[in-house]
């Protein structure tokens, strides 16, 4: 080489120049910029006022809300109900333990160098549901039983979403593999299952689970309403998941299947070691999209009489002691959902980057 290594020219960005080029280039862009600026100025102020400056935060009853802004006292006062539903106060530590375990398992996933991160994640996926199964309903190990009809609020939302998410992924993977199976019976069953469940709205599934399913069960067999709803949600969700995973399976080049076969790997190893790791990685955005959709769809259990976080807020804003607090209530619900869904989304992006090992061959 004759030339010493050359660096690419740096592009200098100066704010004034940038603004002139991007915001005020021509009369049309200038009008747009000014218009948007006006909207921002006029809306941010009132919003800030409502949320913080004119809002009331402390107090114990509706009379504390004297300001023109939000009445956060309402959320404060009813927070216990929004989080635990009718779960008895003295037993709420059990739910708190689960919240803590959930945080311990998943918050470290955002910290790159956290020791034992992987094991915490594995515990979160496999151990947490088991602990929850004994801890939340109680009735064993000397724990007082709490009927599922008393569960509610954020805790119920998390139970529904967590079990729905964790159970639907493996079932969905099996259905996707089944749909691509060479065995006609397995393929047929998978296709029918997926197409039937996917074509039914979740509300219908929930109604069927709560009203019709008991009619088909033999005499004396009684499954709790919550369990029925969970089964319905999981199966419905797994049909969606199956189609997302199938998209990934189809995107894997045939050569990968052939190379794995040629190395003597049997069907399950071929899928488990070669095909699925690549296929699932490819459809992470789709899987996460489905998870987030499910998380929000759990609010539909309201119609079969289960009070999730939206249900608890909904039933409280119609309480005559608190008036005109609906906005605060719904903002709170929106915030709860946003925190979890945004968390899931961020984690998936991190995972995608981490698993990226370059292009396919």
């Amino acid at each position, binding site marked *: 080489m004759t030339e010493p290594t050359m660096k690419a020219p740096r592009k200098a960005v100066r704010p004034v120049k940038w603004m002139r080029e991007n915001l005020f280039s021509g009369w049309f862009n200038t009008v747009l910029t000014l218009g948007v600026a006006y909207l921002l100025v006029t809306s941010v102020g009132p919003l800030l006022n409502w949320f913080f400056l004119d809002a009331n935060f402390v107090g114990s009853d509706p009379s504390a809300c004297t300001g023109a802004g939000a009445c956060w006292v309402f959320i404060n006062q009813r927070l216990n109900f929004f989080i635990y539903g009718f779960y008895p106060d003295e037993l709420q530590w059990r739910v708190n333990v689960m919240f803590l375990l959930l945080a311990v398992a998943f918050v470290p996933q955002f910290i790159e160098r956290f020791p034992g991160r992987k094991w915490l994640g594995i515990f979160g996926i496999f151990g947490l549901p088991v602990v929850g199964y004994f801890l939340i309903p109680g009735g064993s190990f000397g724990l007082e039983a709490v009927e599922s009809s008393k569960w509610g609020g954020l805790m119920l939302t998390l139970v529904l979403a967590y079990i729905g998410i964790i159970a639907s992924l493996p079932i969905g993977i099996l259905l996707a593999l089944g749909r691509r199976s060479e065995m006609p019976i397995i393929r047929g069953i998978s296709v029918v299952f997926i197409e039937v469940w996917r074509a039914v709205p979740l509300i219908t599934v929930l109604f069927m689970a709560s009203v019709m399913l008991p009619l088909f069960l033999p005499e004396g067999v009684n499954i709790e309403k919550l369990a029925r709803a969970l089964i319905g949600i999981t199966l419905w969700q797994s049909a969606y998941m199956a189609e997302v995973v199938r998209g990934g399976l189809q995107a894997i080049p045939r050569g990968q299947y052939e190379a794995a076969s040629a190395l*003597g790997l049997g069907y399950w190893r071929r899928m488990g070691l070669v095909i699925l790791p690549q296929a699932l990685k490819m459809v992470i955005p789709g899987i996460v999209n489905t998870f987030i959709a499910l998380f929000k769809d759990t609010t539909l259990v309201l119609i079969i009489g289960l009070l999730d976080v939206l249900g608890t807020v909904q039933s409280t804003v119609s309480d005559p002691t608190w008036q005109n607090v609906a906005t605060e209530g719904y903002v709170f619900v929106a915030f709860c959902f946003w925190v979890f869904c945004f968390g899931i989304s961020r984690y998936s992006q991190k995972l995608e980057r981490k698993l990226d090992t370059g292009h396919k061959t």
Partner: protein
Amino acid sequence: MGNPMTDQAYTPEKQAPTDGRAGKKPDIIRVEGMHKWYGDFHVLKDLNLTVAQGERIVICGPSGSGKSTFIRCINRLEEHQQGKIIVDDVELTDDVRQIDSVRREVGMVFQQFNLFPHLTVLENCCLSPIWVRKTPRKEAEATAMEYLERVKIPDQANKYPSQLSGGQQQRVAIARALCMKPRIMLFDEPTSALDPEMIKEVLDVMIELAGSGMTMLCVTHEMGFAKTVADRVIFMAGGEIVEQAPPHEFFSNPKEPRTQKFLEQILQH
């Protein structure tokens, strides 16, 4: 199963090889009256071939002649509908266990390399020995490093396939197949997807491998390779074996007009 280079315990076949070579080595592949159809399209027509242990065969022919399909039938990546294929005394049928046992003994190298992009080079090489042969990880890794040295890329062991050049990827693919210690190696146009300057490094590895006594079946257009390495060159056209002969005879004195035409076309430019 031992190393193919030292394995002497193979039971000799009574039947002598049909190609006229002295029957000093036993047959490892026998194809008898094999036909294959894709729907109504008759791809392979009445193929008969016997390969002796340690024999190196190059299969050539115009595109669409069925040569790739043929070698893919030998490890059952493609199914044949009539006739018999017997590999290492195991007949290929619908029996999945028989197919898997044949695939353990037959390594394959593809035109598109087909390395597993989510695994490092070393993991690519160890996957099958660990899961199929149940080799302990340490041992599998040691063997893999040995073969990676043989294909001259031990320094790339911890990289991902996408970080390697085409030639390097293909050499990894060869090492990966060898890690299973197969008795037979199939090559399906191993240099066709490579940039010209990388063809040699792959052919060198294949020549070295041929020298070690491995039974090899190569579908390739590299006529230089065929001349140096092959014991026998097979010419296929239209799904049939048109001619087979030792390379010197094949190139200097082809008998069939179709072979002559093919050789004219590929050697003149």
